[in-house]
């Protein structure tokens, strides 16, 4: 049945328009316009607006239940509403001086939004463009699923490469043979995005190969299935071997700056894996997770520093301080765990939040200043030595962090499938019933806090040697929130989800440093959209997905029942 719900489409268009106005007024259009995705053709500012229209088109496509021209018409309509709202903004910015209150409502914004064509002409172009993008956007959603996936992926890849072009160019600059290809792909030097030809090539290569893979994947998989056990196993080991080689050579390929980005992402992932045990596996909402990070860092700092400014100087070797730091974090985890044993949900969150702040304020306090340096922190933490190699630059630290992450990955995987993992799962579902199954609540909860704290303490220790100095303000509440957000975005309780979340929420922002001003805004918007569209996260754990799509599950079962 086809329905064309005028009101709903207008409403979506209006909401999209308001989002567009917001994007323009906070200054994102202007600032992002400095950078091109496709050189000379498409700027990043415009990409933001187009993306808004595409998201609108996605929702509009949801309201029209038919896959037909009605969809395109609906998309065009919502696009028109969007661009009319944007035109109104442009006209107002042009006619009245709004800069007293709205700093970014500047003539240059008008210039961008009117394509430098002046008021009447430019606005007409804007509206036509809105209609076209809306129509094309919803046309994407009526394509057959396979083609839609390929097209979306291709467009996404173009946007991604265009966005990351300077980093890609810099890191590929070392390869002499590639310089011609790079020059062709990226056109006019380092400040601009892909060349038009490069963008088309990327789009075609990605979409076509995705399409081919989609059609042939079952065949390939079937052929692999048919292979004898032995060659299948060797194929698997070959895959692992390749992955291993990539991991080993990554710092050499990426260069210093990107390795540094990978390192900070890695630390977040390491913490995420730990918090995932507490929040994802055991369902204990811990907002003070940064405390253990601080404890790990400060323990290493106090035990190994050579500054001589603190009253007690230990001068330990890092490799002795590291287990001490992890042990202290574990003890702190248990000490936090004991008083909160009887608390659930929101109450637990508040208490742990307080705990995190207490640790930070203690680090800042004058009372502990002689021992841990107060607001000046601890300086001159020497880099550790590993078999005569000084771990003091991003490229050596990288291996250290990878080792930590692999350890954490392995441990959480084993724990998840263990008896302890099962009791965490029961605890998360229902504490009382878990107890009636014979699960020791006290031990189970304390184990969750302790294991989570151990990983956090480990990443804190690495942070201490990575920076060489630690300050109380490195351990703000925002870190706990970031780690929690990356778990939510990746998918609660899902181990691969932690990696996805880490790359998205720690890696990408690190790469887009120049837009750091908008980081939290985009972050917040992403979380809101995620919760609406994909509440189970990007790479969800099976159980969690089932809960949020109970209706689908029931529909599937009824369908199966009818078939049977």
């Amino acid at each position: 049945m086809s329905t064309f719900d005028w009101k709903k489409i207008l409403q979506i268009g209006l909401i999209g328009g308001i989002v567009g106005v917001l994007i323009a007024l906070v200054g994102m259009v202007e600032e992002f316009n400095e950078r091109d995705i496709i050189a000379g053709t498409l700027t990043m500012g415009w990409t933001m607006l187009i993306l808004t229209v595409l998201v609108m088109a996605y929702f509009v496509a949801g309201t029209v239940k038919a896959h037909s021209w009605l969809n395109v018409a609906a998309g065009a309509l919502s696009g028109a509403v969007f661009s009319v709202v944007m035109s109104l903004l442009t006209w107002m910015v042009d006619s009245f001086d709004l800069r007293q209150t709205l700093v970014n409502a500047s003539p240059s914004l008008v210039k961008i939004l009117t394509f430098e064509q002046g008021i009447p002409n430019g606005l007409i172009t804007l509206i036509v463009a809105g209609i076209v993008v809306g129509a094309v956007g919803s046309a994407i959603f009526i394509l057959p699923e396979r083609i839609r996936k390929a097209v979306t992926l291709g467009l996404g890849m173009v946007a991604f490469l265009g966005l990351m072009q300077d980093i890609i160019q810099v890191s590929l600059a070392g390869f002499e043979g590639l310089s011609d290809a790079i020059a062709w792909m990226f056109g006019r030097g380092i400040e601009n995005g892909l060349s038009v030809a490069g963008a088309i090539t990327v789009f075609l290569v990605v979409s076509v190969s995705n399409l081919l893979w989609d059609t042939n994947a079952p065949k390939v998989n079937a052929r692999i299935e048919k292979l004898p056990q032995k060659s299948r196993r060797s194929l698997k080991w070959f895959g692992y071997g390749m992955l291993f080689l990539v991991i080993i050579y990554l710092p050499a390929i990426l260069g210093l700056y990107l390795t540094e980005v990978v390192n900070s992402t890695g630390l977040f992932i390491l913490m995420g894996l730990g918090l995932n045990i507490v929040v994802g596996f055991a369902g204990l909402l811990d907002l003070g997770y940064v405390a253990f990070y601080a404890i790990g860092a400060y323990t290493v700092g106090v035990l190994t520093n050579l500054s001589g400014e603190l009253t007690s100087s230990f001068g330990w070797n890092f490799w002795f301080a590291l287990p001490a730091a992890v042990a202290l974090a574990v003890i702190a985890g248990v000490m936090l765990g004991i008083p909160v044993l009887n608390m659930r949900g929101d109450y637990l969150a508040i208490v742990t939040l307080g705990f995190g702040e207490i640790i930070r304020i203690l680090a800042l306090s004058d009372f502990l200043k002689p021992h841990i340096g107060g607001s000046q922190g601890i300086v001159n933490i020497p880099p550790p030595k590993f078999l005569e190699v000084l771990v003091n630059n991003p490229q050596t630290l990288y291996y250290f962090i990878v080792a930590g992450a692999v350890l954490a990955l392995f441990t959480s995987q084993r724990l998840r499938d263990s008896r302890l993992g099962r009791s965490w799962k029961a605890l998360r579902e229902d504490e009382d019933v878990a107890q009636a199954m014979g699960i020791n609540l006290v031990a189970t909860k304390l184990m969750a806090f302790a294991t989570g704290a151990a990983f956090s303490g480990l990443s804190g220790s690495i942070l201490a040697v990575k920076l060489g100095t630690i300050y109380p303000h490195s351990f703000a509440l925002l870190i706990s929130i970031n780690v929690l957000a990356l778990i939510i975005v990746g998918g609660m309780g899902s181990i691969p989800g932690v990696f996805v979340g880490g790359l998205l929420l720690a890696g990408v922002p690190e790469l887009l440093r120049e837009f750091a001003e908008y980081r939290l805004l985009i972050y917040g918007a992403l979380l809101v959209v995620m919760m609406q569209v994909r509440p189970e996260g990007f790479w969800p754990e099976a159980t969690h997905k089932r809960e949020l799509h109970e209706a689908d599950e029931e529909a599937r079962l009824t369908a199966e029942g009818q078939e049977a």
Partner: protein
Amino acid sequence: MSILSIENIHTYYGNIHALKGISLHIEKGEIVTLIGGNGAGKTTTLRTISGLLKPREGTVKLNGEDLSKYKAHEIVYKGISMVPEGRGVFARLTVTENLEMGAYSRNDKGENSRNLERVFTLFPRLKERRTQVAGTLSGGEQQMLATGRALMASPNILLMDEPSMGLAPVLVELIFDTIQQINKEGTTVLLVEQNASMALGIANRGYVLQTGQIVLSDSAEALKSNPTVQKAYLGME
């Protein structure tokens, strides 16, 4: 010696005196029922036996051993399993995962697979739905699952809290038939019910609970013909 005996227990919720000196005993192989209205203390009695609540006074004895030194999860290892009120299945886990959770206290793989087989024989419906998420089961199926899950711990004593709650009459009958079946296979059952006529229909003996005290105790037959019970719990004039 009674397999389970309760002597003069007083249990409190904060300052509310919920159980005012309850004593009862259960012999091996019996089905004993506790009947009574809302707030009489039936669930509180079960929670006290299973260790989720600690009595301020009195003792719970299993084969003569005082259970007060054990925590709730340790009592499961002693052979007492509970089917909680409102079923309490793990809604996001599948039927099989729920049953596996029930076997948490048992580490013997052979025993676990025998138990699983037994549960699937008792409730063929659960076998059909073993990959389904428990939250999407019907009320009756959830009751079967909760019962099956308790059986996975190979209990000597099964505590059942209101298994008939919110179920259609035909399902109530099915559940009660299964309780009899489980009992025949050697498990002692303590059954808490509001549906007194059904409960007295399968039980050997019964206790009537009123505002935290036992007001009557007799064989099920005698209770059924007792005029007070008939009037108050069986709806007869």
